[in-house]
C-alpha cells in the first residue's frame, strides 16, 4: 500500500476528494458539531500521535479563531521526558489552556491506590473521571480509532457515558448519516472520537502531508531496553530491569505512547516520517498488540477497561 498519501487539497478528478481530505472534513465537522452543541468540551491530550493529530484538526476546524476548549492530560507520573517536553512546548506555542489530571495526586489523596504490578493504566480511569466531574466537562474528545482493537470497532463517533462514566456497549445510540445526538442529562457525558474512521496508516500519511511535528521517540533512536514478554521496554526511572533481565542498547522507535511502564518500543531504523510509513505499511502486527502490555491481559481487556470509563 505505498503512496496513497495525497497532496493537500488534492482533487482526484472532477469534484472528487481524496480519502485523507474526506477524513479530515469528517473530523472537522465533528469538532464543530461538539463545540456548537456542548457547554464544556475538553480534548484529551496524551502527547501521542493520535492526540497530536486531533489537536491539529481542532486548530483547523476553528481557524482563524483559537481552539475554543482546553486540553487535558491524564498524567500517570510515568512519562517519557520527550513527550512532556512536547506537551509543554505545544501548550505554550498555541496558547492552550491545560488541565492536568494527576495520578500522583490521586494516590496522595487516596482516590486510587497503586496496583501490585505498579502499572497505572487502570488507576488512571478514576482520576480522569474525577477531573471530568470537577471541571463539569460534558464532552471529551479522545483519539481512539476503530481499527485499533476489536471492542473499538463498534464504538460510536459520539459515545454515551452515564453519570459514572461507564460505557455500556448494548446501550449506545444508533448513528445515522452525520446526525449526532448530543443530548445528555446533567452529570452524563459523551466521549467523542473524531478519528474513528482513520487507520494507523492514515494517521502517518496525514502527519507527513501536514508536516506535523511529533515527539522524538516516534523515530528510531538508540535506547537502553530490556526484553520482557517478547517486547522491548525502555529502561527509565519507572521501569527497572528485573532479575535475569539484561539491559542492552537497541535502535528502536515507539508506535504508541502511553504509560512508560506498559508501553513497549519496536526495533526500527526509521528516522523520518516517510521511513515510518514504509515500516507501518509492511508491519504484520497491530500497534496495540506490538506495544501495549495492558491489552495483552485478556481477549476482552480493552472492553473491560472501556466499560469502567477508560478512554
Amino acid at each position, binding site marked *: 500500500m505505498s503512496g496513497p498519501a495525497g497532496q493537500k487539497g488534492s482533487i482526484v478528478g472532477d469534484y472528487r476528494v481524496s480519502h485523507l481530505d474526506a477524513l479530515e472534513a469528517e473530523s472537522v*465537522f465533528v469538532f464543530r458539531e461538539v463545540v456548537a452543541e456542548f457547554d464544556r468540551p475538553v480534548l484529551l491530550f496524551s502527547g501521542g500521535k493520535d492526540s497530536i493529530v486531533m489537536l491539529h484538526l481542532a486548530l483547523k476546524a476553528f481557524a482563524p479563531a*483559537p481552539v475554543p476548549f482546553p486540553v487535558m492530560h491524564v498524567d500517570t507520573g510515568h512519562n517519557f521526558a520527550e513527550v512532556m517536553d512536547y506537551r509543554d512546548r505545544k501548550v505554550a506555542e498555541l496558547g492552550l489552556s491545560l488541565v492536568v489530571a494527576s495520578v500522583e495526586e490521586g494516590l496522595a489523596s487516596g482516590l486510587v491506590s497503586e496496583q501490585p504490578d505498579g502499572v497505572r493504566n487502570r488507576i488512571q480511569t478514576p482520576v480522569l473521571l474525577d477531573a471530568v466531574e470537577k471541571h463539569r466537562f460534558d464532552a471529551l474528545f479522545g483519539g481512539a480509532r476503530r481499527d485499533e482493537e476489536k471492542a473499538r470497532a463498534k464504538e460510536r463517533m459520539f459515545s454515551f457515558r452515564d453519570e459514572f462514566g461507564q460505557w455500556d456497549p448494548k446501550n449506545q445510540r444508533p448513528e445515522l448519516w452525520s446526525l449526532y445526538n448530543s443530548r445528555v442529562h446533567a452529570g452524563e457525558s459523551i466521549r467523542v472520537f473524531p478519528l474513528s474512521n482513520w487507520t494507523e496508516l492514515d494517521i502517518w500519511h496525514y502527519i507527513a502531508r501536514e508536516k506535523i511535528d511529533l515527539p522524538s521517540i516516534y523515530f528510531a533512536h538508540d535506547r537502553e531496553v530490556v526484553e520482557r514478554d517478547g517486547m522491548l521496554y525502555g529502561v527509565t526511572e519507572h521501569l527497572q530491569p528485573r532479575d535475569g533481565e539484561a539491559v542492552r542498547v537497541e535502535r528502536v522507535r515507539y508506535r504508541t505512547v502511553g504509560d512508560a511502564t506498559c508501553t513497549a518500543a519496536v526495533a526500527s531504523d526509521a528516522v523520518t516520517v516517510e521511513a515510518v510509513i514504509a515500516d507501518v505499511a509492511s508491519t504484520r502486527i497491530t500497534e496495540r498488540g506490538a506495544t501495549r502490555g495492558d491489552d495483552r491481559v485478556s*481477549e*476482552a481487556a480493552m472492553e473491560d477497561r472501556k466499560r469502567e470509563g477508560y478512554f
Partner: protein
Amino acid sequence: METVTEPTELLRFATAGSVDDGKSTLIGRLLYDTKTLFDDQLAAVEAVSSARGDDYTDLALLTDGLRAEREQGITIDVAYRYFATPRRKFIIADTPGHIQYTRNMVTGASTADLALILVDARKGLVEQSRRHAFLCSLLRVPHMVLVVNKMDLVDYSQEVFERIAAEFTAFATKLDVPDLTILPVSALRGDNVVERSPNLSWFEGPSLLHHLERVHIASDRNLVDVRFPVQYVIRPQSNKYRDYRGYAGQVASGVLKPGDEVMVLPSGFTTTIASISTADGEVAEAYPPMSVTVRLTDELDVSRGDLICRPNNRPVAAQDVDAMICWMDEKTPLQRGRKYAIKHTTRSARTIVKELQYRLDINTLHRDEAPDGLALNEIGRVRLRTTVPLLCDEYRRNRSTGGFIVIDEATNRTVGAGIIVEAG
C-alpha cells in the same frame, strides 16, 4: 507492489447477510487477501478456532468484537472495518443479519455508497435478502451488489447462479435500485473475491474487489442543488480579526463559488459569497463532503441551523412533513400524538406525530393501515408537525437534507430514523 501517484478515494459500503451466508468469512477474506489482517489478529483467531476444535480457521471470529457476542455467538451491533488497496480506502459497516437487523442495517446503509447483500448459493434468495434489498433502496444506497456465495458447494454451477440472479433482478425492478451488480464467489475458497477464478471461468464479470475498486461513485453526490447548512459561526474576537464572521459547515450538496448569489434561509435575505476557505487558505469551489468556512458580502444575522442556497433553487421550508420512519427503540413504540425532539441537518426542533398512516411489512411490502404504533425495527409512514420549519428536500433527491433522527425527550435516546417523502 503497485503504486499510484493519484490520491485514493474513499468508498463506504455496508454488508448484510447472516453468519450462515458466510458474510464474516467474506470480510475476513477481503482483509486477509488485501494484507490488512495482522499476524497477531490471525494468531488470536487461530487459537480460538483450534480450541473449539474447528478444522479450519474461522475468519468469522475476526468480526465478533464484544464478549457478550462471543459468548452468545451472535453479533449485536454495527462494526466498522477498514482496508485499503492502492486505488481506494474502504470503510465497511458490517451489520448483523439476525437480531435487530433493521435498526443496524438502516444505520449502516445511511452513509453507504454501496451495499453488499450476501446469499447462500444453495438456498438462493430468502426473506432476509429481500428485506435487505428493500432497506438499501429505502435508504437510497446508490450501488447494490448481490454476492452469491458458497459457489463451491453447488459445483460452481452457472445455472444455479443465473437462476438466483434472474430472481433477484426481477425483485429489484420493483424497488428503487439505480445500479445492481451480481457476482458469484466462494469466500471460503477465495474464488472471485480478490482474483477471478478458473472455477468460475464461465463468469465474465469482475471479481468482487475489482468491482469495489472501480465502481464509479463520484457522480453519486448531488452537485446540482446548493445546500450549505450553517454549523457554527466563527468569530475570533481578536484585534487582528475584529470584524471576521465565518459560517462554518460541511457542504451537503451542490457547488459553491465566491461571487455566487446566495439566499440565507429561513430569513430569505440574498447576498453573495465573499470567500470560501479552509484552514489551508481560500478555495475556488466547495462541494461535498468538504468542510469549509463561507463568508458573505453583507452583514446578515446568520446562525447555526440556517441554510445557504441559491435564490432560484431552494429547499422547502416546511412544518408539515410526511416521512417514512424506522423505529429503533425497544422500550416504547412510536405513537400518534406523541412529541419528540428531532435533529435535521444542523437544526433541532420538536415535533408531534399528527398521523401514523401505515406500517409497512418489509417482507411483503404490504401496507398495514392505521396501526397502533411502530415498535422496534418497524417502518411506517407518518405525518409530522414541527415547531420550526425544516429546510428540507425529499430524501430521494438529497440524502443530507432529506434525513433526520428522532430523539426521546425524556431519555435522550435516539429512537428513530426518518426519511422525508413529501414536505410542504
